[in-house]
């Protein structure tokens, strides 16, 4: 693992120094494999970030993830005005451990500043109810952005990807041309980690079928389905407050103040970062590693083998804002 500043990353990218090792193309789009942009953002559990803090953190992480000058210019490299951008938030754990509304809205603002009409930006989760529980307001129309549940609007027929056979939400199969996974940093009792990749379970109709064997290879199989693989532009992880134990639901005893927001065009690297942070906190508390606790994080190696990103800690580049 290496640590860089955004400016150093930009210089390296400009010099082509990362070509062949990190900077490259994946599934036909530009990505920075292994690069995770990070920005600090601190708040006590259950209290909101101020809008300005949220904006700074989101813009900083986003800019750092691609070596851009600003959050808006970073967004402009990832999204086109013609895109319909779907931001999948993970709200399973309710208000205190879901992506913060203010961070999500900061991302919406940056994408809008990159030229995407706000009416073409959709924040979504499995149901309206889950969104509302997490503090989001349902918006089926209006000038700000759309915020709606999938609400059982799935493809009529299942499609297969590796070991999974699922009806995908039409939100990802049909409506959106670009996708963002907006997760949180938390422990998962079966997969080990639920951050950006596990979040995609929320777009298939039958996620309960795919929790055996640490959700492996199923997490990968969902993420490598063309609906996701070909449209995914960005993974954002809200790590202001994270959970190192007792997930995926909220458990007070497992919460810790990580104080970070992460952004990456590499979904595997983003989850690798989350995994390392969870393990680090567990070590501080004297908890066993996730593997020793019976939930090894197998899915990242499988995802890397399928070419979805970088799971090698030595190739992880953490870029500060």
């Amino acid at each position, binding site marked *: 693992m290496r640590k860089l500043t955004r400016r150093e990353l930009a210089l390296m990218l400009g010099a082509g120094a990362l070509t062949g090792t990190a900077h490259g193309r994946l599934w036909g789009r530009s990505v920075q494999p292994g690069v995770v942009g990070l920005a600090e953002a601190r708040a006590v559990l259950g209290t909101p970030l101020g809008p300005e803090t949220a904006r700074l953190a989101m813009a900083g992480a986003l800019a750092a993830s691609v070596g851009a000058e600003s959050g808006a210019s970073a967004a402009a490299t990832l999204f086109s005005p013609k895109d319909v951008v779907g931001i999948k938030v993970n709200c*399973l*754990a309710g208000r205190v451990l879901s992506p913060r509304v203010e961070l999500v809205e900061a991302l919406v603002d940056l994408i809008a500043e990159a030229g995407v009409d706000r009416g073409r930006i959709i924040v979504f989760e499995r*149901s309206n*109810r889950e969104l509302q529980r997490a503090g989001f307001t349902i918006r089926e129309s209006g000038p700000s952005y759309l915020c709606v549940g999938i*609400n*059982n609007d*799935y493809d*009529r*027929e*299942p499609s*297969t990807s590796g070991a999974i*056979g699922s009806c995908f939400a039409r939100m990802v199969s049909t409506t959106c041309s670009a996708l963002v996974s907006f997760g949180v940093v938390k422990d*998962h*009792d*079966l997969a080990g980690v639920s951050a950006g990749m596990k979040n995609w379970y929320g777009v298939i*109709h*039958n996620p*309960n*079928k795919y*929790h*055996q064997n640490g959700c492996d290879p199923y997490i990968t199989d969902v993420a490598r389905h063309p609906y996701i693989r070909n449209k995914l532009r960005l993974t954002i992880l809200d790590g202001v407050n994270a959970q190192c134990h*007792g*997930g*995926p*639901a909220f*458990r007070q005893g497992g919460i810790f103040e990580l104080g970070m927001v992460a952004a990456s065009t590499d979904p595997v690297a983003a989850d690798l970062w989350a995994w390392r942070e969870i393990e680090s906190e567990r070590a501080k508390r004297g908890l066993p590693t996730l593997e020793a606790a019976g939930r090894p994080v197998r899915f990242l190696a499988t995802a890397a083998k399928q070419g979805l990103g970088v799971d090698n800690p030595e190739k992880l580049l953490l870029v500060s804002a």
Partner: protein
Amino acid sequence: MTIDRRKLIVLGTAGAAAALHPPFLRAAAAQSGSSVSGGELPAREASWYKKLDEGRVECELCPQGCKVADMERGMCGNRENRGGTYYTLVHSLACSIHTDPVEKKPLFHVLPGEKAFSFATAGCNVECKFCQNWEISQFRPEQVQAYNLPPDKLVAAALRNGARLTAATYGEPVVFWEYVRDVAIAANAAGVKPTVVTNGFIQEKPLREVLPLLSAIKVDLKSFRDEFYQQQVRGKLEPVLKSLQVIKEIGVWLEVVVLLVPTLNDSAAEVSDLCAWVRAKLGPDVPVHFTRFHPTYRLTDLPPTPVQSLERAWKIGHDAGLNYVYLGNVPGHPGENTTCPGCGGILIRRVGFQVLSNRLVNGSCPDCHRSIPGVWS
């Protein structure tokens, strides 16, 4: 208006029921507050699970043995851990209801020609790639239209519709086992015979607790190879074989169905092994139905089962000493008829789900007077 196929099927079954029995659906809707969909699902504490540490639970209903964290569900999709208590979300929540001939189950030795008031909820504990009912079995309860239909109202509806049987079917009754149990209790009290159509993938304790309440049970033995169970079903063979033996031991009327899928489970060797096991462990009088596969769900790259494969299985079954071997999904085939093992005469003549004639007299052959096992009255 546009609707998807899943909704069409649900509406179709409800519509068919309405066309045949309009008083029932109107009454059910009026009495139950109509359909339940989308919102907060009614929850009832599950009967078979244990609490683990840190708010987790372990389901003790089926052999999947799901260990479920708070806010999560088991593989069935219709049981949820809420704060360390495990709930079924489908008790009294029927998503398919219809009055079928009992031959459709198929139960060929149970009140021939009678109606079975059939019901299902969403969810299943396996995932057969060839599932014929995937639009309900592979979905979660909030994803399908459903009706609040408590056991007493379900049985009352059965009686109004002239059904002498209830049948938990279509989806997988194991995953709504509490509902099955309570419907069976209500049915027995009303003189209606409760039956179940299941994959048999259930732990022994819940099976033993409910079996004495049932009049008949049909088990889908999906293959006689564990490899098939793992790859095509995402289950295991051994627990199903155990269930069959428990059912035989308890003495509930049992029929076995084997869906023959071309190239995957229809080899002569496998069918022969299966028939020999049934003969040895369950006895020669357990009916075995070999039925025809049609491509569906995730198995659309195979053709329907050739009739020759079915006929080969039929012969293997007879040669193994099984007295009642049937063929299914081949309407008009002689393999649908019940013949007397004593004299060879045709006792019950069927076409599809229709009984054309029934010559049984007090459960016996009228020609040679051999007793034919089954539930005849």
